């Protein structure tokens, strides 16, 4: 199976109008992460693929024409799976009914709930679930139609880091079992690295980078062993040295500075923490 996308659409951005022009070929079973700043057209691209928004151009998914110059296949007939950032569960239906509403396949529903550890919650209504549980249900629901194409729009961005990594395991598990071709919008480098086999970066509606996650995400230069960006939170004086406290991602690290260095930095500044030999330094 091969997915061919060649679409364009005029978008009215916040600051300026722009045109979304995306040309992509995706192989069967590929897990493609789409990254880029907000307003770069990521969500619109997913919605066009789902048929929730119109566009010019061509979309062909395993010889089935979703969109061409004459026709646009209705969302209902595309047979895709879609996972929304805000879960979008049917609030009036129990967990189980949410799945069965897509397709009356009790065996598959049971299997999916078992796989994601939700079996005991099958009769519960969505409002009584945690965010992570809700997104698991949404994930299971998306697989009920055994979709050829799964689209996920920042599925984990509303969850805390621990929940996120558990959900990543679930996504990986389901992706392996169903070998569904998947497109996921994400901002989280560790998530992209863990899940995706390929990554594209969108900027102002155009693809500016299309490689493996490792090639795009690894950011050290020259002899640096590592280089991390973080926010300087505090500079503490301890005896004759100074200690800088820096927040990097979800972690806090301390870096020793001398008095002269301590004067150069201001709290709130974005700094790079890197090391060439063994002594970490800020610059």
């Amino acid at each position, binding site marked *: 199976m091969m997915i061919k996308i060649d679409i364009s659409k005029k978008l009215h951005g916040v600051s300026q109008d722009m045109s979304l022009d995306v040309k992509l070929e995706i192989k069967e079973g590929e897990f493609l992460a789409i990254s880029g700043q907000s307003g770069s057209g990521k969500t619109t691209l997913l919605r066009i693929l*789902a048929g*929730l928004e119109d566009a010019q151009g061509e979309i062909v998914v395993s010889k089935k024409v979703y969109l061409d110059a004459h026709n646009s296949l209705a*969302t*209902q*007939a*595309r*047979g*895709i*799976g*879609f996972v*929304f950032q*805000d879960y*979008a*569960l*049917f*609030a*009036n239906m129990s967990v189980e009914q949410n799945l069965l*509403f*897509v*397709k009356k396949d009790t065996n598959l529903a049971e299997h999916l709930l078992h796989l994601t550890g939700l079996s005991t919650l099958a009769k519960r*209504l969505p*409002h*009584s679930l945690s965010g992570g549980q809700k997104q698991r249900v*949404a994930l299971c*629901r998306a697989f*009920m*139609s055994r979709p050829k194409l799964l689209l996920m729009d920042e599925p984990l961005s509303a969850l805390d880091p621990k929940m996120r990594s558990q959900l990543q395991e679930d996504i990986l598990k389901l992706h392996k079992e169903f070998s569904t071709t998947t497109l996921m919008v994400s901002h989280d480098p560790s998530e992209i690295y863990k899940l995706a086999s390929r990554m594209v970066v969108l900027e102002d509606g155009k693809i500016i980078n299309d490689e493996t996650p490792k090639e795009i995400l690894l950011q050290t230069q020259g002899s640096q062993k590592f280089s991390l960006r973080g926010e300087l939170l505090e500079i503490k004086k301890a005896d004759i040295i100074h200690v800088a406290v820096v927040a990097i991602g979800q972690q806090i690290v301390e870096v020793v500075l001398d008095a002269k260095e301590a004067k150069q930095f201001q709290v709130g500044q974005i700094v790079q923490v890197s090391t060439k030999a063994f002594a970490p330094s800020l610059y």
Partner: protein
Amino acid sequence: MMGLDLEPFLLSFKLAGLTTLILFIFAMPVAWWLSQTRCRCKPFVEAVVSLPIVLPPSVLGFYILFAFSYNSPVGAFFEDVFGIKLVFSFSGLVVASCLYSFPFMVQPLQGGFTSLNKNMLEASYVAGKSKMQTLLYVALPNIKPALLSALIITFAHTVGEFGVVLMVGGSIPGETKVASVAIYEMVEIMDYSQAHIYSALMLLLSFLVLLAVYSFNIKHNKRIGLG
């Protein structure tokens, strides 16, 4: 309480019940369409739908009376084709009430549909469900408080209508003499004791209806975790 004629009350509730039922069927697609459409004609349609709220009932009643008379195409059509006389008849009252109470059914439903999570409706389309299936199985069950408000307010508003009923129906006992018209006539002939009883009954019924709506809303919100 001797000689208390309950017929005007029964007539009022029969009229309100029929109007609510008919409007539920006809107003729902309009409310759904208004909540989903991006058509430029939407403000125009909304303005027409809401007209009965701002129009004096006598004005509306006058136009309806005019349209229902045998001299107008509408009146002639109903009488010639269905054999129904719309002026000063119960059927005419039902049609007039439907026109008069239309916005009271459409607006709460439209508000309910608009407040639904758009992604939830799209999730239903993605799952292969048609607009109709989505309306029935996803949208409607998730706007129960708005639905109940729409039904009750339409019902109560029809029970309480006076101007249009008087203009279109007159006051024929057992045919068009509803409770509000009956009270008006009692006051006119200075039968205050009967008017008191009728008015108190209307007050009590109206209060109970509203109390039931608000109690249900609290319970429902608790059940779905909003309370």
